């Protein structure tokens, strides 16, 4: 699962994605005193999810700052701080609250550099979440990364492993542009090897999570694991699936997607955002445009159902792609159903 772009030094430990995120923040907070974290209940509480646990003890309340429940306000404050020498990391508890910060993010942070002819820079990271099936209902389960990916001037990162999460977050904090870093609420527990030493993963370089020959499964964030599980199911049927993780939506490593699709001749894009007008449409279009003459079948898209996320378990469980549904779609695309 290591990135082709950076060699992981010898000596690794097993961490969860949450621990990897926490470690990346701690390292950057230590390295650069202009870095600070601001958000609701980030200090003593370490967020309701405990992802930031321990940071306030080491860095103090001046750098791990509990804010009022003012998502737009803290994002705006971060934009001003970023323009004037700081590197804020804004914590937006649920991705559903992106609804409240879109002006500061899309009209201010994303455009300041361009509108000023390159003079102002806004090196901020906005960390938030995506993902359903947590029984949190319609206002705490959305995956709205398509909105921010559509905004020129924003970089968008969707890590799927502890290794990627740490390397990408450190790179995001050092990036001179506004970066939206989105973590899946359900995958924070996922474990993986992380090297002892420092490393960065450049934004804009995708990763092949599993090599295959017959079909390409492009997965983002939580759906990378769904695709990997689907690939196992498919292997049992003698279908060799390649799993590709773009890791960042913008910049997008389109070449990696296209190369894989050209090789396999078939592709399915799986993303946890709503299917219509979602990220899967862009990734499928990139493949459809550039790999068209190598494709043996249409590029399919699987995403969250186009319904507000329902609370009731038997309803909610149907709304997100599963290894079974991805495998079924793959079999059909390969004419094996």
């Amino acid at each position, binding site marked *: 699962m290591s990135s082709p772009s950076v060699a992981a030094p010898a000596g690794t430990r097993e961490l969860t994605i949450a621990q990897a995120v926490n470690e990346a923040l701690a390292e950057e907070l230590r390295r650069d005193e202009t870095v600070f974290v601001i958000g609701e209940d980030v200090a*003593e509480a370490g967020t*309701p999810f405990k992802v930031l646990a321990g940071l306030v003890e080491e860095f103090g309340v001046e750098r791990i700052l509990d804010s009022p*429940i003012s998502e737009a*306000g803290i994002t705006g404050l971060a934009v001003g701080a970023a323009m004037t020498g700081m590197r804020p990391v804004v914590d937006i508890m649920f991705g559903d609250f992106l609804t409240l910060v879109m002006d500061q993010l899309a009209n201010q942070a994303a455009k300041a550099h361009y509108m000023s002819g390159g003079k102002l820079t806004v090196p901020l990271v906005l960390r938030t979440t995506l993902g359903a099936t947590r029984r*949190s209902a319609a206002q705490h389960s959305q995956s709205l990364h398509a909105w921010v990916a559509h905004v020129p001037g924003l970089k968008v990162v969707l890590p799927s492993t502890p290794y990627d999460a740490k390397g990408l977050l450190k790179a995001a904090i050092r990036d001179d542009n506004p970066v939206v870093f989105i973590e899946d609420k359900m995958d924070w527990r996922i474990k993986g090897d992380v090297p002892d030493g420092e490393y960065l993963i450049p934004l804009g370089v995708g990763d092949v999570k599993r090599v295959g020959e017959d079909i390409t499964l492009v997965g983002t964030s939580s759906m990378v694991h769904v695709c990997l599980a689907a690939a196992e199911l498919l292997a049992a049927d003698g279908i060799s699936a390649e799993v590709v993780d773009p890791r960042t939506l913008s910049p997008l490593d389109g070449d990696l997607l296209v190369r894989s699709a050209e090789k396999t001749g078939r592709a399915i894009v799986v993303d946890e955002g709503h299917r219509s007008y979602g990220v899967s449409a862009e990734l499928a279009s990139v493949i459809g445009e550039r790999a068209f003459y190598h494709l043996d079948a249409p590029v399919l898209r699987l995403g969250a159902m186009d319904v507000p996320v329902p*609370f*009731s*378990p*038997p309803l909610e469980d149907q*709304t997100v792609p599963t290894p079974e549904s991805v495998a079924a779609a793959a079999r059909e695309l390969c004419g094996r159903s």
Partner: protein
Amino acid sequence: MSAAAEHASPGSVAPEGPWLDMYSGMTTIRLFEEQVNDLYRGAKMPGLAHLYIGEEAVAVGVCSALRRDDYITSTHRGHGHCLAKGADVGRMFAELLGKESGYCKGKGGSMHIADHANGNLGANAIVGGSTGIATGAAFSARRRGTDQVAVCFFGDGALGQGLLYEVMNMASLWTLPVIYVCENNLYNEYTHYLESTAGEILDRPRSFGIESAEVDGQDVRAVFAATSSFVERARRGGGPAFLLCNTYRYHGHHVGDVDRAYYRSKDEEELWRSERDPLARFGAWLRESGVADADRLKALDDEARTLVEEGVKDALDAPFPDPSEVTDDVFA
């Protein structure tokens, strides 16, 4: 009665307080929420819930001053508001369990229960998210020429949301019949409100020209009296009001928040539970003022307990919605 009048703000005429209904209402909320906690601990309830225990006097005091056709908007901590506005215990449990017979057919869950028939426009999982809705319901009442009022419940944390100031400004400009009820239970999740709130809370609505008052949220008669006078004023076309209710949640921010020592002390919790419990205080007053004796109250407690026990039992036995319903109700 005099008890209520005695608590009413100057100039208001508090209606006869249906004291025993209030007592039953508060008791039902308490027992309902304890049951919710058990359901969570017993892994019988999907997801989480934010218990209203300790704050019962606010919802009951406020809603007892409203008519069935008046509106309320609620919050993530909304079970108490919903019950106080007249919701059925069984259908609420069913919703919390994601069952077909729930108020929202299981689609909403704890943070989204709506009971349109009783004027409850819904709980809301966006802090401050319903302040516009309540203001709009009041706007609609005025435009439709009714004398309905709308009550907007929200917590101290919602004071951080800019939307509240945008709509209070319009409510004041257009003299809308909306009452903003701020439930200050001292915490925004795990952060004390003083760390997130500058200045004096009441100065904020006042700066928009909104009539404001503060009340002991653990005294249901005081809440009822203050609300009654604001409601009556709003019905007469007197415009919006803001009621700050000082209260406390006994349990965690949500059912899973059990280790709270890092953000509040056991002593603080104990003080509120032992010295200021709204049910105990109200019960004592009912007995002392001769409205009801211990046996009568015991009988009401038992009624409430039966109601809750039967309600949860039915809900547990009720079926989940048919999977096909997932695509229903996206559009009207």
